[in-house]
């Protein structure tokens, strides 16, 4: 039987779907989000996200859950996560990844996450987006949230 070998979790990147699920207790993925956090709370690691992820998460949380909840989330999250700014260099890599992917459902922000994974040696991506599955091998990361 083939088994996939799990890497050690060292550098963890959180994407929009995780943050949104966490901020919405009535979301079908909320319990899964809290289980992931319980697991991550038991060992040392580094947590990362990006300004693009915050841009999406804050907007959707504000529009669909509540503006004050979005504000509270950002002010809490920013204190303990390393926010990577998508700068000119990362944006150039993002654009090159975007052009190389044919699937229309993979967004520009998704491509920016792949650029960050590559650049910052992220080993674990926390997400509920299924389309990241097919990039695991090429970008050398594992997923947390889709199991």
């Amino acid at each position, binding site marked *: 039987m083939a088994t996939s070998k799990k890497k050690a979790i060292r*550098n*963890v990147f959180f994407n*929009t*779907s*995780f943050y*949104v*699920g*966490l*901020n*919405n*207790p*009535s*979301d*079908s*993925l*909320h319990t899964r*989000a*809290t289980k992931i*956090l*319980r697991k*991550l*709370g*038991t*060992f*040392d*690691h*580094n*947590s*990362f996200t990006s300004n693009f992820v915050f841009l*999406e998460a804050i*907007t*959707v949380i504000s*529009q*669909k*859950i*509540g503006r004050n*909840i979005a504000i*509270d*989330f950002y002010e*809490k*999250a920013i*204190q*303990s*996560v*390393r926010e*990577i700014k998508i700068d000119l*260099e990362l944006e150039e890599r993002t654009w090159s990844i975007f052009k190389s992917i044919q699937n229309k*459902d993979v*967004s520009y922000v998704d491509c920016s996450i792949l650029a960050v994974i590559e*650049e*910052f*040696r992220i080993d674990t991506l926390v997400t*509920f*987006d299924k389309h990241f599955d097919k990039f695991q091998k090429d970008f050398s990361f594992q997923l947390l949230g889709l199991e």
Partner: protein
Amino acid sequence: MEMQKTTIRLPKKLLVTTKKQALEEGLSLQELIAQSIRLRLDHKDLMIKANEPNQGRQHATDLMKLAKKLTEANTTGPSDLASNIDPYLYGNK
């Protein structure tokens, strides 16, 4: 430190602004570019090698507290929101 010669190509506009900045800072173009590359690599290195080993654990703890608070406040939103971010954000939902 042993130096090695290399060639880089920059967009014309960037080259003009880089030369201007080098002049303002009293550096040669080569020095300014080398300094910028070093700064970028140091920054990236710092980001990767976290000085605070508990930073990730702290993030998990902070977010758990937030989730608990939201549950206690009976916060609600669409049950399929996290699995449909793009349609909700960009207009299909």
